[in-house]
């Protein structure tokens, strides 16, 4: 087993990976940009190396520098997390060339699957169903437009070099096509260092359902069942659940087998995710394979009881899977809510600032994979994901109730977040019934926005009185220069009163 692993990432996923490293007795090495000097992953790690300036192009994407740090620090393996360099074949190859183990599939599998168009070709060869679309990245916008017209609008423009909704655009009509391609290319370049995009038919009433797979060096491949990821906004997942309310055991087994076949078709190694689109008749199409850990991996961990990062590390070190397909079960139900630093009431604009009061939910069946701290600054440089709230219970209904309880007790002041937005979704009748598809947000977005969780007419006095008190305190501070009066606790007050009795 490895003694030292460098985690080539930041934020919640870096912390997530390091937690498992420590549990396995492996030293973890953090890299950090200027903006992240005191970030939680840096405080957690056994060793920490500065990797450059705040913009990711000057730090977390500098793969040569990262490989050099790993070599100098004596790291035997590199875990790339998700995003950044996780699906970059040049990086994966460079790591291996430096004699360091890349925790992920071989560069060839990343190339086949990471490149969405090559993946489609591979699937077509294996006679697996794929969504209609271009088979090569867009080079000529006019040729691409011809294809788009042939498959019919609306179409999706997607980044060939990575996932997570970055570089993705839905195009409703011919006129918007050219600009949308350019925007998607720019975003894709900035997010993955790769500007290639491709086109795909935009299925109507689709469900986004993905299967987790694990493949070892001995050729064993298993799947860990599905995750339902149809709640998206801005082409990005925001709430996921496992198991999917749409699948029955037969379909689950069939799709799981397809997922294993997909993994086998590219000689896959490690943890990966096979994404399917499913229409309302329960026909499913291969969408893409993500050759890395997914943001939403914890819901699978919770219903299966398996630590996916530990499995990744064991596989990378050459160990054979000890898990058997027939022993993989589903216990209860798990729901993940992604907490972004975004203003849901203001078109999901990213929000920066300093975290004031922070109250993270906890207790029965409640897990938060995050990397935040009271007093911490949220900077504009990186993905706005603050963390993920994952709630488990024995039934879907209980898991929904638990998620709502946890979101209600989740408190972050100083920045805008998606906490209340997630709560609106969880409370929405269509979501509760489990009859939603990927159009949920398009259909109910406005409703969710105006779906006030606290009714204005019920808080006139509490809002007015608090605001009055606040302004009065501020005035007192300015005039007296004394800001401590209001800070004294009740306990202090009662002690004082006692003394004067």
């Amino acid at each position, binding site marked *: 087993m490895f003694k030292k692993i460098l985690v080539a990432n930041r934020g919640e996923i870096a912390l997530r990976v390091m937690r498992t490293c420590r549990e396995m007795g492996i030293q973890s090495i953090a890299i950090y940009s200027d903006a992240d000097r005191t970030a939680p992953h840096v405080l957690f790690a056994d060793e920490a190396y500065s990797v450059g300036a705040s913009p990711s192009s000057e730090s977390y994407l500098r793969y040569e520098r990262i490989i050099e740090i790993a070599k100098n620090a004596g790291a035997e393996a590199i875990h790339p997390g998700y995003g950044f360099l996780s699906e970059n074949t040049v990086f994966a190859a460079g790591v291996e060339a430096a004699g360091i183990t890349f925790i992920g599939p071989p560069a060839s599998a990343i190339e086949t699957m990471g490149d969405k168009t090559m993946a489609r070709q591979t699937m077509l060869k294996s006679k697996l169903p794929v969504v209609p679309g271009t088979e090569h990245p867009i080079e000529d916008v006019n040729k691409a437009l011809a294809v788009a017209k042939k498959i019919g609008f609306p179409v999706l423009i997607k980044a060939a070099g990575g996932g997570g909704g970055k570089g993705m655009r839905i195009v409703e009509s011919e006129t918007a096509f050219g600009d949308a391609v350019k925007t998607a290319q720019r975003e894709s370049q900035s997010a993955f260092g790769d500007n290639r995009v491709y086109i795909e038919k935009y299925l109507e009433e689709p469900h986004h359902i993905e299967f987790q797979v694990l493949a070892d060096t001995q050729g064993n491949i298993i799947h860990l069942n599905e995750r339902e990821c149809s709640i998206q906004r801005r082409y990005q997942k925001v709430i996921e659940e496992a198991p999917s309310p749409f699948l029955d055991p037969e379909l689950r087994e069939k799709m799981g087998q397809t997922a294993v076949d997909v993994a086998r078709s590219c000689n896959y190694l490690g943890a990966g995710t096979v994404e399917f689109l499913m229409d309302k008749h329960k026909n499913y199409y291969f969408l893409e394979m993500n050759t890395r850990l997914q943001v939403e991996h914890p819901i699978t961990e919770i219903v299966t009881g398996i630590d996916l990062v530990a499995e990744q590390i064991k596989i990378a070190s050459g160990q054979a899977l000890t898990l058997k397909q027939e022993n993989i079960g589903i216990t209860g139900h798990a729901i993940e809510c992604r907490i972004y630093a975004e203003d849901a009431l203001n078109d999901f604009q990213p929000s920066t600032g300093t975290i*004031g*009061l922070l109250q993270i939910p906890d207790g029965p069946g409640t897990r938060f994979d995050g990397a935040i701290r009271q007093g911490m600054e949220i900077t*504009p440089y990186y993905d706005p994901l603050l963390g993920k709230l994952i709630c488990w219970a024995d039934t879907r209904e209980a898991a929904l109730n638990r998620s709502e309880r946890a979101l209600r007790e989740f408190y972050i*002041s100083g920045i*805008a977040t998606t906490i*209340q937005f997630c709560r609106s979704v969880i409370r929405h009748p269509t979501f509760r019934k489990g009859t939603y598809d990927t159009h949920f947000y398009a259909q109910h977005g406005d409703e969710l926005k105006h779906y006030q969780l606290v009714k204005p007419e019920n808080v006139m*006095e509490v809002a007015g009185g608090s*605001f009055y008190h*606040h302004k009065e305190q501020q005035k007192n501070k300015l005039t007296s220069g004394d800001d401590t009066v*209001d800070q004294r606790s009740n306990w202090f007050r009662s002690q004082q009163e006692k003394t004067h009795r």
Partner: protein
Amino acid sequence: MKYEIGINGNSLQLDIQRQDNLVVIHSELGKSVLDVVPLQENVYSVIMNNHSFVVAVESDMSQRVVVNGTPFDISLLDAIHLHLRDLGWESASETRTGQVVTQIPGLITQIFHQVGDEVDQDEPLLLMEAMKMENEIKAPMSGVIQRVHVKQGQTVEKGTMIVEIG
């Protein structure tokens, strides 16, 4: 003292008084007693008529009050301002302004208009990249672009004036 509070189109006349550590409010809904105790800067625990609330007053968004996590944009006008309003004077904060100011720091990636262009309300003015996403900045009102303070490729801080529409 007399106030009028407005939230999302609802309004209510309040008589607010301080009694020792408490804030006492009289309105047509009756009497409410608020025990307001600070938890952190700008964040308060409020117990009103035995109901418990956590209330944050966002310091750099004027008038935004967050009650149990739900944000509200409120107005609290005292007797003088109420009188001025009755005389037909609108408070400045209620008129739409043509000054476009960044809410977050970021990178200007594209500018769609130049000085002299006519724009409609909600028409995209420019693209700004922040937190790995492109964000459209839209016109807050219809009018003619008076000034453009930024150029493509420029990094801007939060609160930067970028465009003025007149």
